[in-house]
């Protein structure tokens, strides 16, 4: 009789003591919890459920597709082949019973061996030391970097706040900041960072010459991350972080950074303009190319004109200036 364990070298895996057996079943949304329950009896560490979904609003939101099945996975350590066979046979039988109870059909039980890995550290390979523009270097805190004389190094702990440096919108803003610094526009400047996320832009601004930075974000997790990353870079005295948005009520600033999204830039245009002193510069980023005209128009209505633009892939960043006087 064929079964999910056919062809798997359970004895070898048990001898090597470094393998897990992955059990997987495609299940209708309604049956996901019942399937998870059955799999967790064989594999008590919990289950992962990958639902079908589609991205909407230019990828800024995800809508779960409940009409298509989700993939449920669970894992058991392979210690003894007999114990694994018995647990899997039991799970297979119980899954077979499910359809008798009015839940919609599910797929067959699948199984494969997964090698043990250093999961607590393996994710770190995705975060190399990154160079942005000419001088800026983003260094994940656990990595070393041999500093060149001109390097501006930003130490960062990626986590639950946007702004790891891996996304074009962040890199565009950093490159634009560097260009501002090259013209001396950041020397001694007061800077506002709206939607600070990880705090990467605030840290960049401070490192490139700003005298003080106010970082605001509506997300408390981002506020915490910005503050922690500022401390990590020994910039806690120059970067103040709090919950908030634009207008900040503490303006005007010489430079305002807004790496948001097009729709939010349009909504906040009044506040951003209010926070900017005459002659000051706004860096607006997070703009999908097909929304650029809307942002330009919204800023134009507040008297801001576009001085420069940067692009990477489908993304655009704009440098807008408020006329002096």
């Amino acid at each position, binding site marked *: 009789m064929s079964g999910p364990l056919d062809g798997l070298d359970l004895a070898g895996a048990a001898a090597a003591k470094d393998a897990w057996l992955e059990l997987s079943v495609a299940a209708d949304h*309604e049956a996901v919890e019942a399937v998870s329950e059955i799999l967790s009896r064989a594999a008590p560490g919990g289950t992962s459920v990958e639902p079908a979904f589609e991205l909407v609003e230019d990828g800024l939101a995800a809508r779960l597709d409940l009409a298509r099945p989700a993939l449920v996975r669970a894992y058991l350590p392979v210690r003894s082949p007999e114990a694994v066979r018995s647990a899997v046979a039991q799970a297979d039988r119980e899954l077979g019973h499910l359809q008798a109870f009015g839940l919609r059909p599910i797929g067959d039980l699948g199984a494969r061996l997964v090698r043990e890995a250093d*999961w*607590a550290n393996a994710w770190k390979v995705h975060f190399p030391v990154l160079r942005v523009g000419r001088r800026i270097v983003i260094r994940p805190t656990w990595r070393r970097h041999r500093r060149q004389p001109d390097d501006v190094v930003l130490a960062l702990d990626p986590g*639950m706040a946007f702004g790891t440096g891996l996304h074009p919108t962040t890199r565009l803003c950093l490159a634009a900041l560097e260009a501002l610094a090259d013209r001396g526009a950041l020397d001694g400047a007061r800077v506002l960072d709206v939607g600070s996320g990880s705090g990467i832009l605030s840290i960049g601004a401070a490192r490139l010459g700003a005298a003080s930075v106010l970082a605001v974000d509506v997300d408390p997790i981002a506020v915490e991350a910005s503050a922690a990353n500022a401390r990590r870079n020994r910039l806690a005295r120059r970067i103040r972080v709090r919950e908030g948005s634009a207008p900040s009520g503490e303006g005007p600033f010489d430079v305002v950074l807004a790496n948001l999204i097009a729709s939010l830039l349009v909504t906040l245009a009044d506040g951003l303009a209010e926070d900017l002193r005459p002659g000051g510069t706004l860096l607006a980023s997070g703009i999908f190319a097909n929304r650029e005209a809307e942002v330009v128009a919204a800023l134009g209505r507040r008297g801001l004109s576009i001085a420069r633009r940067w692009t990477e892939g489908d993304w655009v960043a704009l440098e807008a200036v408020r006329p002096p006087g």
Partner: protein
Amino acid sequence: MAKKIRIVLTLQLPAGKATPAPPVGTALGPHGINIVEFTKSYNEKTADKLGQVIPAQITVFEDRSFTFVLKTPPAPDLLRKAAGIDKGSQTPKRAVAGRVTRDQVRAIAEQKMPDLNVNDVEAGMKVIEGTARSMGIEVVG
């Protein structure tokens, strides 16, 4: 920030006891998110729910930052509690593991409504009843 989404997925984990071992490591590892920050944050948020299974719906963004929200406990967990049993029947067609009342099923359906793909509580109750029967839990009254 321009948080473009890479993927959404759910982990059903023991509250307060998540570790980087599977399913956490295998589900999140390929997306390169900070797994230790996830387990630490999940365990802090669920520390007062020890002994329950609390699903976390995780959104991973394109720059490998992420966020998550906690969902209602799975129906089997709630049914076991309502029936006062440790586990469901392993032969649900033959052996009855426990009993719940229709009122208890209604209460569970009401609690689960935000996460069920149904329009009203009656339809939600049908889903919960199906799950109950699949565990050998009889619905009475």
